């Protein structure tokens, strides 16, 4: 009886933890299989423990090249989308102007559109313009679909900002530029950082839109896609595991920094 009561009381916790397990199971598999020594070309069955892939992560032809292309695109897409998106977010929150509704829907629509539709339509544009598919078309597409997410993230932060802080700065004889750099930007920074992080993750991981507009350029997700047909090298799991660890460390570091700042303020 006691067990039944305990079970009933903690039903939500048990269900939640099961879901968390479902969410993390593939990551566990990816990590475990990065230590595998597969017999054939595919790394789907456990054979034997080995550190080979970890010793030689770039041992597969073209994989690290595709990784570097993906990183470059993600960095530039993040910079582009963050700058453009932050400007839009400030305009939307801080100013009343005509066409606000239209601008809001134009921001919302890319997020409410299946990726395959955007991917296909961009391809028809590039084909019609006779553009050479490759690095630049991928970058253009990535900035386009990351933009909306950055706007949403920055908007949420700027909206919760107290405009009186900026008035106070101006009362203390700060010029517009000084006010922006020393007051507005630091307060908006967490929102901008969140938007940038989101843009980076979205761009780095995008497959569908890239697949349509990449031409013969191979990004890392496209390399993984191809390997699902040709044979998956163990090194892919090494990269996957490393990305997971780096992401966790990154988020942890961010939290430690913001905790420390909050303590300083208190």
């Amino acid at each position: 009886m006691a067990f039944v009561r305990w079970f009933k009381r903690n039903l939500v916790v048990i269900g939640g933890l099961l879901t968390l397990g479902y969410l993390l199971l593939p990551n566990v598999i990816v990590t475990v299989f990065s230590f595998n020594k597969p017999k054939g070309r595919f790394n789907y069955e456990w054979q034997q423990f080995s550190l080979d892939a970890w010793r030689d992560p770039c041992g597969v032809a073209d994989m690290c090249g595709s990784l570097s292309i993906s990183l470059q695109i993600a960095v530039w897409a993040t910079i582009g989308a963050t700058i453009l998106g932050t400007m839009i977010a400030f305009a939307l929150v801080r100013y009343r102007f005509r066409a606000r509704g239209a601008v809001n829907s134009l921001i919302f629509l890319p997020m409410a559109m299946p990726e395959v539709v955007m991917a296909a339509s961009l391809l028809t544009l590039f084909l019609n313009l006779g553009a050479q598919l490759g690095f630049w078309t991928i970058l253009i597409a990535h900035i386009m679909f990351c933009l909306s997410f950055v706007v949403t993230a920055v908007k949420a932060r700027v909206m919760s900002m107290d405009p009186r802080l900026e008035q106070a700065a101006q009362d203390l004889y700060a010029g517009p530029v000084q006010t922006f750099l020393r007051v507005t930007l630091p307060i908006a920074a967490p929102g901008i950082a969140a938007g940038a992080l989101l843009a980076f993750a979205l761009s780095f991981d995008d497959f569908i839109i890239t697949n349509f507009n990449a031409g013969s350029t191979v990004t890392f997700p496209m390399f993984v896609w191809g390997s699902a047909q040709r044979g998956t090298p163990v090194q892919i799991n090494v990269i996957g595991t490393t990305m997971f660890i780096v992401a966790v460390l990154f988020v942890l570091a961010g939290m430690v920094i913001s905790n420390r700042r909050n303590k300083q303020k208190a």
Partner: protein
Amino acid sequence: MASVTEAPLLAPQPDKKPPRKRGRLVPYWLLLPGILWLLIFFALPMVYQASTSVQTGSLEEGFKVTWHFQTYWNALSDYWPQFLRSVLYAGAATILCLVLGYPLAYLIAFRAGRWRNVVLILVIAPFFTSFLIRTLAWKTILADGGPVVGALNTLHVLDVTNWLGFTSGDRVLATPLAVVCGLTYNFLPFMILPLYTSLERIDGRLHEAAGDLYAKPFTTFRKVTFPLSMPGVVSGTLLTFIPASGDYVNADLLGSTDTRMVGNVIQTQFLRILDYPTAAALSFILMAAILIMVTLYIRKSGTEDLV
């Protein structure tokens, strides 16, 4: 993500200054580059796609606009099973995401205590491991004769799913169940995060009040918690259903030719067969179907201020 509502205009406004002509143009200068980008690389492509869908011709001779609306009809009559499958699979995945995601979002919002941030990180971190790698991992998990399939067999779950037509024989891979499982997995975080955001805003004292009024836990959930989390439910289901209905990765990696979704058809038509008009028509129908469904859904759920 779509749940951001407009700024309350009641916030203290800056002092009124005499209007300056230069200042009035500032918002437009701020908007110009980004909006131009979206107009050229998001809106204009839609126009090109619309025009492509009413063209006829071939890759060798070139395509011409002939207002050939027959393409739409042909596309629909040839590929309605794939359309139907997309809606069914995405719908099933959305419901599963809601059922699986709600307890976890609830756990993070109310029961995790000091573990809250750790659990949140564990929900977000998989985002950073390429989703293709993680989807491929499901091939290992659901492998024929593997422990998962074995357990489902022993528990006679497969008998039930076989009877429902979700699986066939002793395997899960290459069946609709595998595709729905992959879709659910892939879009689960998109359900959990909006749910968590709206649950977190609920005042815990409301639960106490419900308890004081002799509501049983389930009644509290049904009458207080769930209605207050509706904005999260709506934006979560949208963020899950829309991308899932256009996805072709899960159907390709975990499914078979019998589980092809409309995304697979669009991809094949565009990139392999190079029949651009049919592909454009298909993706236009998908877009229109989704816009209509989403509008109806938002109307119905009475949260129009969401968008």
